């Protein structure tokens, strides 16, 4: 299982992109998914520099593929006030999916991440996530909109 209640933060209080990435990466670190949190964050920020992962509609999907990742993971964070992300539509983001992928990731896991990415283009799924107020609702939305 890549995603469970333990990998969700419903009240992210970060003000900056870097801050948000660090807070969410700490959740992954606590779950034992990382070899080195600093090295992982570096890979995510390097990726952000190519161009922002704020894809519009209040969504950001920061990600890093690095040997600092032990196991593929998804951490989800929700921010009420929004985080400035230099997004495609210039708007702050409220739904953040932090993805971690080891160098030698299994295809099965990469598939799950690709399906999640596709699902983020589904307005209904995104609306569901935006309306969700509890971790249970988030998990339910994931279940309703595909297998995870």
């Amino acid at each position, binding site marked *: 299982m890549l995603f469970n209640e333990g990998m969700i933060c419903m009240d992210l209080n970060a003000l900056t992109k870097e801050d948000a990435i660090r807070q969410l990466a700490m959740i992954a670190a606590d779950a034992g998914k990382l070899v080195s949190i600093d090295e992982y964050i570096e890979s995510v920020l390097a990726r952000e520099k*190519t*161009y922002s992962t704020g*894809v519009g509609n209040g969504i950001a999907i920061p990600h890093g593929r690095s040997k600092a990742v032990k196991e593929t993971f998804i951490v989800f964070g929700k921010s009420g006030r929004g985080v400035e992300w230099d997004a*495609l539509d210039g708007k702050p983001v409220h739904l953040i999916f932090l993805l971690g992928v080891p160098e030698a*990731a299994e295809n099965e896991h990469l598939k799950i991440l*690709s399906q999640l*990415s596709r699902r983020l*283009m589904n307005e209904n799924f995104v609306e569901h996530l935006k309306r969700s107020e509890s971790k249970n609702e988030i998990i339910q939305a994931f279940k309703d909109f595909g297998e995870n």
Partner: protein
Amino acid sequence: MKIVAVTSCPTGIAHTYMAAEALEKAAKKMGHAIKVETQGSIGIENKISLKEASEADVVIFAADVAVKDENRFSGKPVIKVEVQKAIKNAAEVIKEAEAMIEKSSS
């Protein structure tokens, strides 16, 4: 109109697939047939064959890294956009494709 498209991005984890989904949705909504090949971390999926490439009216590359096997599409009208643009405004990319076809057929 028959469209074939290839999407790819630097890490091949997220944008490749978001762009594919966005293009598929927009094209279908606008009444076109589309096949989108993703060149991502999983490798090539939904591969466009030589036959499909030759039958296409127009080709879209929503790619930030070099498209593999690009010579499949030689001689075809090709629209190249950044992968971000396909995510942000896929309908506009499809419209560009329509305009290109109109131009070449008139």
